[in-house]
């Protein structure tokens, strides 16, 4: 190594001309980078004042990438590299890279479409597939979501553009729909009045638009209904928790039951001795909309026993 170094005549390598060229190249790089950063900052602050955060970011990054290419070309030109040959080689490399980076290009182009659509901005809460989170960053290739349990999810722009995206916080007010079931023995008019009074008494529920109350179905164990209240988007958690508490408390006070799935088990015996009767027994079951808490047995004819069962009663039955 020392022999190699001693064989080099540094006075011939580092001639004043070479040193001058080196200074020029360094100056081009340093000044070029400063100019690029300055231009990007000015464009972001002044020119792009009325643009969205996403557009500003893409504009800024485009300026930086183009600037870097110009700086590299200028520096190479300064040290005497023939650009025509280089560009020819770059063309070939470009085709190869282009083929290899089809996905990336697709993402960039998808990103441009997303920008023009203005479906969301940084800070919005969106759902893509089964992922929900706050938009943390919008980049040329992807968007980054911060989930509510503080995970970062990267979703490629191409996925976004081909998926159904729900912007949860786009509009200032939303409706919270609660699906409820009440027992068949409940007074439905009372149920409606109780729910509407819960909405009236909760200050987070918007008085207008008015709450929605609609019956949905006569289900196996309950009469199902939808109770929807409008709220300001920032009040989601506070409202949801307070509503659940209020509904449970008021339903308990008013004796309105929220039934859970129930099943009536009929034990049929051929003899007259009930379930222990001689002659064997047939056991059947069918869905029943009976009320919880009314667990009991009822003999229906000789040898047939009907029991309303609830979870935990299996051993009893």
């Amino acid at each position: 190594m020392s022999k190699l170094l001693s064989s080099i005549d540094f006075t011939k390598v580092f001639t004043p001309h070479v040193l001058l060229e080196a200074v020029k190249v360094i100056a081009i790089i340093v000044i070029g980078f400063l100019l690029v950063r300055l231009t990007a900052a000015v464009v972001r602050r002044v020119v792009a004042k009325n643009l969205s955060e996403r557009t500003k970011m893409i504009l800024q990054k485009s300026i930086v990438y183009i600037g870097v290419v110009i700086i590299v070309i200028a520096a190479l030109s300064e040290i005497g590299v023939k650009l025509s040959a280089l560009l020819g080689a770059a063309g070939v490399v470009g085709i190869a890279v282009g083929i290899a980076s089809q996905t990336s290009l697709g993402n960039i182009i998808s990103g441009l479409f997303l920008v023009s659509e203005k479906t969301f901005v940084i800070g919005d809460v969106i759902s893509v597939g089964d992922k929900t989170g706050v938009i943390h960053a919008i980049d040329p290739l992807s968007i980054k979501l911060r989930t509510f349990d503080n995970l970062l999810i990267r979703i490629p722009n191409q996925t976004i553009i081909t998926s159904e995206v729900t912007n949860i916080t786009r509009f200032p007010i939303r409706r919270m729909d609660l699906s409820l079931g009440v027992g068949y023995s409940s007074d439905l008019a009372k149920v409606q009045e109780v729910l509407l009074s819960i909405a009236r008494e909760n200050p987070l529920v918007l008085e207008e638009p008015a709450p929605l109350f609609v019956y949905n179905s006569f289900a196996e164990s309950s009469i199902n209904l939808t109770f929807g209240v409008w709220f300001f988007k920032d009040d989601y958690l506070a409202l949801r928790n307070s509503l659940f508490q209020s509904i449970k408390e008021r339903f308990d006070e008013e004796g309105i039951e929220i039934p859970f799935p129930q099943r009536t088990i009929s034990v049929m015996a051929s003899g007259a001795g009930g379930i222990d009767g001689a002659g064997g027994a047939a056991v059947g079951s069918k869905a029943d909309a009976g009320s919880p808490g009314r667990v009991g047995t009822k003999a229906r004819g000789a040898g047939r026993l009907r029991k309303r069962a609830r979870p935990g009663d299996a051993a009893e039955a």
Partner: protein
Amino acid sequence: MKEKKISSLAELWDREVPFAEGECRLWRLGPCRFWIERREGEWRIAFEDAAPEAPGRSRPARAAAEIAAGVSAMPPGDLAWLRFITGSGEEILIRPALPDRPVIVRPRSPVAILPGRSARFFVRIPTWVSIIAASGERRTMLIQRPVVRLSNTWFGEPDNGELCYAFASPLAASPAETMPTPFTVVCPITIRNETAGPLDFQRLCVRVQYLSLYAGAENLATNEVVFHFHGADQSSQITFHEEPPDFERDVRRISGPQVSPSKNLIQKSFEYIKSLTTY
């Protein structure tokens, strides 16, 4: 605890109350109770949250008898105290304030104003309370809270409207008909129907941020608002009178508008039919 009966607004509002170190005093304004305690270099304030005022209820607040202004009292032990480190200060100023959002007034009974006619109404709006630390000439706002917690409501389209407070109030013909309490403000409203058809509205948006607040001999009051109704599909022209309310005597101004209004504000002010109740 001994509560003192309030005989005039001046005893309750805008009065500097001196505190000895370690002293605790109670204010009770209908449904709202709060304690203020002075400690070395700091103020401690605790609120007891009242049940919210449901918009459908007719009673604006509790009776005026349930009022106490700065009586010495020990607070219950389970209150959450807010601490304000102010350094110095021996006095507290309790001042009324207007709500921080527009208030939607829903008349209890329908009102129709015929074409070319105008009507003057008085509505009552619950105040907020400002707690201000006073030290010589210096005033430092510590906190503002509503005396009556009003329900939220939305005024306008679901994608483009305003978050407001809802309040059911009669459109009274005189301030005396509005169930006076020391913690509600009388707002005089004039509506001019400048269309060829009748004006039959369900809700009226009072943008209190443009109003000044005055204390009179009997009522807290605002300056007058005039709505010029030009049609259901057009925004209304709103004019705010700069003069103090003419129905009160011994009027003094407590605060100016939170937002300076332009001379003629054009904004949507009336709502007629519910449009968002469908599935």
